[in-house]
């Protein structure tokens, strides 16, 4: 259960949003919508604990993520604007590193399966630096196939993806939701994800 109360976010001397609150329970999906610069990414970073709110608090399982970050972090998978990939490592190495960072030890087979699912298996042993934007994004998203965390926070996951990959990602999200996972997503596209409950948060610039 993720609860946000009274969140206020300032960037510089600009107020992005104030008094944002919501509750997200198991199997719940939330879309965050708004124009560019309305603070969508900041809200997601705030929910990850990367950004400290000016006011308000975020609770995971009833405990503030400021006081008990570990429990929240071990249930969280965040894919932001940046892919978090090293250009000098291969796709496979990148994926294994990010999985081991959250202490899931992953063997080659599982990681390769994840890359196959997103359609970049052929690039598994290439350094990420030589891949195209779309391919890089798919390598980053492959983390979702290895993730065991309950909460997924995804910033524009569908951007830079072709139609086939959008379908693949939607299916994966459907499965995650069916297993009682939670997801918070920003998107500009119309996508159809099946969830037990769906809510929309609109930020006004």
């Amino acid at each position: 259960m993720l609860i946000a109360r009274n969140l206020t976010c300032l960037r510089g001397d600009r107020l992005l949003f104030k008094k944002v609150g919501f509750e997200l329970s198991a199997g719940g999906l939330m879309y965050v919508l708004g124009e560019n610069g309305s603070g969508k990414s900041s809200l997601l970073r705030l929910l990850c604990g990367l950004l400290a709110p000016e006011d308000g608090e975020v609770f995971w399982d009833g405990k503030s993520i400021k006081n008990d970050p570990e429990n929240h972090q071990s249930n969280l998978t965040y894919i932001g604007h940046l892919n978090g990939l090293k250009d000098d490592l291969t796709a496979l190495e990148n994926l294994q590193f990010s999985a081991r960072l959250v202490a899931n030890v992953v063997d080659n087979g599982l990681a390769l399966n994840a890359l196959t699912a997103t359609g970049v298996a052929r690039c598994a042993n290439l350094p990420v630096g030589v891949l195209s934007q779309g391919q890089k994004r798919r390598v980053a998203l492959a983390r979702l196939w290895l993730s065991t965390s309950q909460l997924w926070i995804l910033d524009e996951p569908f951007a830079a993806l072709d139609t086939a990959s959008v379908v693949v990602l939607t299916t994966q999200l459907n499965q995650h939701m069916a297993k009682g996972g939670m997801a918070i997503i920003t998107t500009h596209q119309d996508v159809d994800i099946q969830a037990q409950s769906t809510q929309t948060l609109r930020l006004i610039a």
Partner: protein
Amino acid sequence: MKINWFKYSSPQVFYPLAGKLIPWFAWLAAILALVGLYVSFMLAPTDFQQGEAYRIIFVHVPAAWMSMVIYIVMAAWAALGLALNARLSAMMAQALAPTGAIFTLLALVTGSLWGKPMWGAWWVWDARLTSELILLFLYLGFIALQSSIDDPRRADRAGALLALVGVVNVPIIYFSVKWWNTLHQGSSINMGAAPKMAATMLLGMLLMALAFWMYTVAVALMRVRCIMLERERNTDWVKELSLKTLSSQSIAGAK
């Protein structure tokens, strides 16, 4: 006794309060300085070893004291700001830094002005001067870091952390410099710690140090007011205030 500290930590409330306090501290500083100067020049006896040149210590030693005190106070405000996420504390830390740097510079220059007639050289790598020089670098680093970060909240917090790291390091640096100094040259004349200092000399130094202290408070309050105006220029209270001062200034201009 219960005081609502948080009431005064809002800039809007603190701004006029600081405005009322500034003249008091400024006058106190001026009076203390006048008395201090009288004691330093008229009452304190001539030093039998150093002649009249020793009178430089009446500005050098207080400046050196203040440079260290201000750094510690600055770090304390910074720590408070970091711990309580209080904007005002961070602003106070930021307001103190330039004054601290000025006192450090003053201590350095007056130290070398004292050194020339005593040691025959403008600069001697003595422990006190060297530490003072390093302290100046620490102040400059703090100011440079804060001014190169655009986001005020990040600037506050990064500056606070740097001040804390600095304050942990200051004793280590001071010790290492002293150690280095004793290894490389024997004991030198130690200014400000003559074996038998007349009571009036000590009194003069204390009075001057107090004057500097009051001056620091007044100037820091002035600066914190400037910082508030700059940071909160989009808020209603600053806008209102700026319009009010406009009318009073135009009246003054018409006279």
